């Protein structure tokens, strides 16, 4: 609890900058997709479709930054090594890290939702939002992001190899994971790729949040998505801890 509080104190100093950056990033995309892209042939509701993806993508937005921070810490043998010397199980230090990242992700996700409504106003019908399903998606996505970040920190050799996090993990998962299209459309266009894409956790992030915010019709079942994300979290968590155990050489 004390370690988590210490993390949150540092977090408070930078969170406003992160939120402003996030608003730039998501606001511009929502505006273009909502007001310009329909003139190129996309459905008028495409802006809202993208906003739903941006809401859940807010957590993804901080993945690179979080992994970079963690890698810098590991490379320079700073904070995390000090925490490992405390009289608590070493895995608890990593769980604390994951809890902090999950909190940060949930916070960012919640920040994008009202911005999407303000930007798209009449296009974004709040009566379609299922509060329970949205909460479940926010919680499960935040848990997933936390363990995905730990896993990436276990995979990447050192800070100088950080570039691969974006180009070889985040971007392909994000762009192939139904950010700009739904799984049903992909299934119609290329069924094989659609089935392969079921092994991509971002597919469940995107489909789940769209079903929760825009209604279930046309998307994968939201509760199936929540379940899938928890399974991916478990896998990333277990493998991430195994890798970090070897990397940090703790017992």
């Amino acid at each position, binding site marked *: 609890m004390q370690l988590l509080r210490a993390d949150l104190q540092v977090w408070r100093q930078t969170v406003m*900058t*992160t939120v*402003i*950056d*996030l608003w*730039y*990033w998501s606001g*511009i*995309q929502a505006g*273009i997709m909502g*007001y*310009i*892209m329909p*003139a*190129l*042939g*996309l*459905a008028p509701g*495409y802006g809202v479709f993208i906003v739903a993806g941006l809401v859940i993508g807010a957590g993804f937005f901080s993945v690179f*930054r979080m992994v970079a921070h963690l890698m810098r810490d590991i490379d320079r043998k700073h904070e995390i090594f000090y925490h490992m010397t405390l009289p608590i199980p070493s895995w608890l230090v990593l769980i604390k890290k994951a809890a902090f990242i999950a909190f940060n992700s949930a916070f960012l996700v919640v920040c994008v939702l009202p911005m999407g409504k303000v930007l798209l106003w009449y296009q974004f019908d709040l009566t379609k939002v299922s509060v329970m399903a949205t909460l479940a998606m926010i919680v499960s996505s935040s848990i997933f992001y936390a363990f995905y970040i730990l896993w990436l920190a276990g995979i990447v050799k050192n800070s100088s190899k950080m*570039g*691969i996090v974006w*180009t*070889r993990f985040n*971007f*392909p998962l994000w*762009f*192939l994971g139904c950010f*700009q*299209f739904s799984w049903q*459309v*992909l299934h*119609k*266009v*290329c069924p094989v790729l659609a089935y392969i894409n079921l092994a991509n956790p971002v597919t469940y992030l995107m489909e789940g949040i769209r079903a929760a915010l825009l209604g279930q019709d046309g998307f994968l079942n939201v509760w199936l998505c929540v379940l899938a994300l928890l399974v991916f979290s478990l896998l990333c968590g277990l493998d991430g801890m195994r890798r970090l155990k070897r990397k940090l050489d703790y017992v």
Partner: protein
Amino acid sequence: MSLSYSFYFNVFRQLLAAEFIVFKANFKDKIIDLFIWVGITAAIMGYVMPAFGLAADYGVFQLAGLVASGGLFEVFPSVMNLVSDFEGDKQIDYQLILPVPSWLIMVKTATFYALNAIILGVSVIPMGKLVLWYQFDLTKINIIQTIAIIIAISIFYGFFTLWLASRLENTLKIGSVWCRVIFPLWFLGGFQFSWMVLHKLFPTFAYVNLINPMTYIMEGIRGALLGQEGYLNVWLCALALAGFSLVFGLDSIRRLKKRLDYV
């Protein structure tokens, strides 16, 4: 006089060659990363998004934007490297004590980034052809215009990188460079739509967007690769980019002169 120019040119060339030794070591990784990015984006836009209502040739339209963006994606890491150097190793100080004008060192740095952008931008064209095959009609390419616009775009990226590095206080603020400068310019500058479409929908915004250099980058490369119809004139775009390069170049040299305290 001519002797000193030839000496300057030799130093310039040697420094540039030294930069390329480091570049060569990372070249394979850069190309793989570029291929992943271009391949996925072009395939999704070319084969999946038309099922969402976009025109059948939208993949090619987007590919032209990717050719122009190949160099843009080097801007962020390059700014990071430059500012880290200003804060840490200060390798640039060694170059600034060489017996050549200090501005030449800045021009050398911008030239290296420009050449980098040319290599990456040109690499996107065969990658795009491989992914989109029949959709990408190579006969529509105007080679002279393509060469001219790629050079103009790359020179702009070179000086833009220098300018961003001159404005960024420290590496801690690097994240904001992407979110508040590069991304808005890129995304609002017509990466996913043409200026004409924007002009039909929001004429005022379209005219405001004429002060965004990315507008000329996107329109120029599309005019050169896909045919002039529907885009701003390629030569006008090349001229505008030369103007932006000059402004960014002069301002960055002035700012870096103050920051690095050289004469």
